[in-house]
């Protein structure tokens, strides 16, 4: 069973695409929604972003292929979503080997060990990011690149930001950010998270095509704003509630990661609670802990509770 090459089906006849690919229109729509963001990101930070996503997608695909061949099953299209997401939630300057580690760990520990598509408890891309975030803080929190939109195509990688402070750290230290810059992506950050207007557009597309749950997005973002508002009263935080959700990867994670249909709860009522858990834990972590990127852990914590929420909601409605 353990990595026996003869069973991996790596030899002889190459199967046609249809034979080993599971068709998933839902996942395809997520990919479509991610592509403009990828394009913007390339124009903002340079071609390195494209290479990052190619590496992450390649690694994810390869590991999933190996595992699914072992079980003689089809590859899910979801693996491309995971691959794209991993590439987009890492900073543009992330060394390629870290991108590969993030993808590998994410897809292996986040998905395959649970039995592949449809069985994973956690969002694989977030698992990968959390792993490298804790492992290599130097590369993931200290180096940021200048936004150069739309001149990114001239660069391999846009010049490095000299001041050490990232928008999130600036936010923590209480400086006011230019909101328009935030919204239009004229900021540094992880590759895919900067263009808020594209993320909002993608959110509408995904909601209208019934791909993503608006309840999850709304309750995640809403609870973050709500808790930020509450924390403002005793003066614990002093930034604007809109900045709270416009900065960092909050919006990106809320739209693309929290709504992942596999790791989110399935019951409608549970989705509200799920978003609430993500939003509240993200705000608490970003405000009080040493990690400035709380939404990542927020989503993972939310994932942990998703099955429980489903059970809770269905047992309650069953009693009625």
């Amino acid at each position, binding site marked *: *069973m*353990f990595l026996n090459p003869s069973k991996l089906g790596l030899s002889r006849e190459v199967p046609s695409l249809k034979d080993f690919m599971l068709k998933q229109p839902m996942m395809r729509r997520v990919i479509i929604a991610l592509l403009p963001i990828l394009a913007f990101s390339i124009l903002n930070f340079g071609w390195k972003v494209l290479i990052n996503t190619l590496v992450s997608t390649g690694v994810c695909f390869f590991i999933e292929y190996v595992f699914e061949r072992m079980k003689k099953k089809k590859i899910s299209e979801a693996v491309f979503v995971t691959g794209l997401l991993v590439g987009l939630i890492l900073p543009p300057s992330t060394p390629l080997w870290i991108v590969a580690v993030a993808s590998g760990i994410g897809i292996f520990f986040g998905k395959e060990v649970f039995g592949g598509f449809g069985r994973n408890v956690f969002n694989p891309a977030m698992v990968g990011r959390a*792993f490298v975030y*804790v*492992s*290599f803080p130097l590369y993931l929190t200290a180096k940021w690149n200048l936004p150069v939109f739309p001149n990114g195509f001239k660069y391999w990688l846009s010049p490095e930001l000299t001041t050490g402070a990232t928008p999130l750290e600036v936010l923590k230290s209480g400086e006011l950010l230019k909101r328009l810059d935030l919204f239009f992506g004229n900021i540094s950050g992880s590759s895919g998270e900067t263009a808020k207007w594209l993320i909002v557009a993608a959110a509408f597309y995904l909601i209208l095509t019934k791909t993503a749950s608006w309840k999850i997005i709304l309750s995640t973002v809403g609870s973050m704003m709500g808790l930020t508002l509450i924390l403002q009263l005793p003066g614990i935080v002093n930034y604007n509630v809109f900045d709270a959700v416009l900065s960092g990867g909050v919006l990106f994670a809320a739209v693309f990661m929290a709504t992942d249909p596999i790791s989110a709860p399935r019951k409608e009522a549970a989705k509200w609670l799920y978003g609430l858990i993500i939003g509240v834990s993200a705000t608490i972590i970003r405000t009080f802990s040493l990690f400035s990127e709380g939404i990542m852990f927020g989503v993972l914590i939310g994932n942990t509770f998703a099955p429980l929420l489903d059970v809770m909601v269905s047992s309650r409605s069953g009693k009625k």
Partner: protein
Amino acid sequence: MNGKDEQISALFKRTLFFENPVVIQILGICSALAVTNRLINTAIMAIGLTLVTALSSLTISAIRNLIPRRIRMMVQVLVIASYVIVFDLILKAYLPAISAALGPYVGLIITNCIIMGRAEAYAQSHPPLSAFLDGLGSGLGYSMVLMIVAFVRELLGFGTLFGVKVTPESFVNWTIMIMAPSAFFVLSIVLWIFKSFRTGTK
């Protein structure tokens, strides 16, 4: 003599492999997670646990016919705790740095299920020499798994093996490997490999 040798090799095969306390019986996981970020600490911990398991099995087996059933468990804990305290004191006196690094985990050997398990499951009903070997084997089984985990964690987490730098200068340390959560990752992979070998040979 020949028959006895075979028995011993079968015993070690059992304790190290088919009934390995950590990867098959999933015992002693707490310390396996806590002390495996450096090989040297792990080695000391493993030696301590092996000695304590072997000696307490030996002692309990030697007095097994004298122990009243009702206070059996209490006597076992008394024996185990005494050996652990002796080991702890010796560490503190002669290897203070490692003792400090291991912190409370030496004392926690007392609560390690492996020792109690061997005492209850084996030493109570077997003669002293077999009990001693069984304890020794179980301790070695534990040690083997811990050393594998520690090898991976120290190599990736510090780029060193037994404190000696073995990776190139450009190597980036995997911070998470130093922290306890990584032991879950590494241990689970080790467990997987062991189990698939075991099912393969059976």
